[in-house]
């Protein structure tokens, strides 16, 4: 369960990225976060994983107050969520396999589990053949899928994906969405920031729209554009 309670974030340069935002996401929900470029989507995600510090308000994840976490507890918070980063954040001196395996090493999974789990998840994102390549040897979309694989490999209870299909072709994007849908059906809460109107319109999930740091729409089974919007 994710609860944002009146959160605000002003950056050091004075820019107000989030302005008193509140949002509740139940366990097992699938939520799209949409909004123009620079609206504040990534900022919400970064606040949730404590990459950024909140100015005011409260974030509860699985009923734990994120702002009150001690430094030593932050890793546990991050392990409880799988995050697909907008900028991928792959380790450049590790292969595809090692990058995904790293997320399992972090939780001190056994070698056996790693050897079983990693190839399976790489297969799911269509990268079986690329497992020995380094990130710089991959296409943009392939790198993005490594990031997706890494976020899912530990079977987190919350999956947060920031623009996970921006470098994928429509068919591959749809494959990934089917994957997300599947793990969502098995109970994973999903929050996905996206610009892909096709996907949003087709999935018919809850849509939260943010604009200039404010939530301006929250629809149960919404599309990318609000219904009363004129295009």
């Amino acid at each position, binding site marked *: 369960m994710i609860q944002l309670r009146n959160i605000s974030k002003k950056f050091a340069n004075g820019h107000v990225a989030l302005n008193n935002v509140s949002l509740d996401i139940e366990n097992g929900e699938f939520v799209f976060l949409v909004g123009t470029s620079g609206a504040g989507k990534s900022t919400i995600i970064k606040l949730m994983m404590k990459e950024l510090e909140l100015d005011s308000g409260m974030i509860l994840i699985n009923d734990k107050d994120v702002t009150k976490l001690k430094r030593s507890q932050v890793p546990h918070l991050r392990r409880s969520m799988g995050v697909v980063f907008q900028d991928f954040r792959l*380790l450049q001196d590790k292969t595809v396999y090692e990058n995904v395996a790293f997320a399992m090493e972090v939780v001190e999974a056994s070698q056996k589990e790693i050897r079983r789990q990693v190839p399976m998840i790489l297969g799911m994102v269509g990268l079986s053949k690329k497992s020995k390549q380094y990130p710089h040897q991959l296409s943009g979309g392939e790198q993005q899928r490594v990031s997706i694989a890494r976020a899912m490999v530990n079977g987190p209870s919350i999956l947060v994906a920031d623009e996970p299909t921006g470098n994928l072709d429509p068919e591959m994007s749809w494959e990934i969405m089917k994957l997300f849908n599947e793990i969502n059906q098995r109970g994973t809460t999903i929050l996905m920031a996206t610009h892909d109107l096709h996907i949003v319109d087709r999935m018919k999930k809850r849509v939260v729209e943010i604009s200039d740091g404010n939530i301006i729409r929250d629809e149960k089974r919404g599309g990318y554009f609000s219904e009363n919007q004129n295009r």
Partner: protein
Amino acid sequence: MKIRTAKFFVKEGFGSLRKNKTMSAASISSVIAALLVIAIFFIIVMNVDYAASKLESQIEMMVYLQDNLSETIVSSMSKELETISGVKDVQFIPKAQALMDLNEKWGDNAYLLEGLEGENPLPDSFKVTLTDPSKANTVALAISSISNIERVVYGKEELEKLLQATYILRVSSLVIITILVFISVFIISNTIKLTVYARRKEISIMKYVGGTDWFVRGPFIVEGMLLGLFGSFITSLAVGIGYYYSSNLIKNQMIGLLSVTLMPFGELISSLVLLLGTVGLLIGIVGSFLSVRKFMKV
């Protein structure tokens, strides 16, 4: 920490050295260079100390005896002298020998002694060498209290000068080596800082995917350790071999002309290896630890 995590650290530490070849080469060679500075200066200091000790050990004390003592008295005096603490060696010099020595020593001016040949004015004496020249005073006092002794003579002023000179040498070389060790430590830790800096992004990523501080730090510490170990190993090897050959060379070349000898290889090498190893390993570990910390606050 599970054993397999420790294994992971070691694997990663080695892997990172292997994968970032340019950086590893640059940093290891900087570590070697810095340790080399320590090593060179350490060798100089040890040899200065060695030479000073050798000089100091050449200080001798002349004990002039009263005239006409019997052989038994002389030999019992010799034994008595040897029991005095601070005395290393005692050698009896009969007056005839003393005159001959003087003759030889004065060389060109020896003709001044010609008139003396009939009646040798020199007394019998003991030549006494000391274990610790700085205690010459006490030893001289103790010797004076023995009966049948005319005078105890030693170059008090010269000795003091020598002791002061060796003291200054020792202190200043110690000061300089301390400074140089600090400088080298600084260079090595800076080198490590730069290699860590070049990978600050990787560190933050590891934190972002849920690595604890210790988990992220582990491989870097192993890497720093390896850097220090490799560095001190190679430096020790190079300096050891270099010293071994040059000390042999100098020993063979200079013999007879001037008594320049380097400190024996065996006496020096173990403390050198210990010094380099400790410095290398310690800074490797501590340096990595501190450098990584800076980029982990994410």
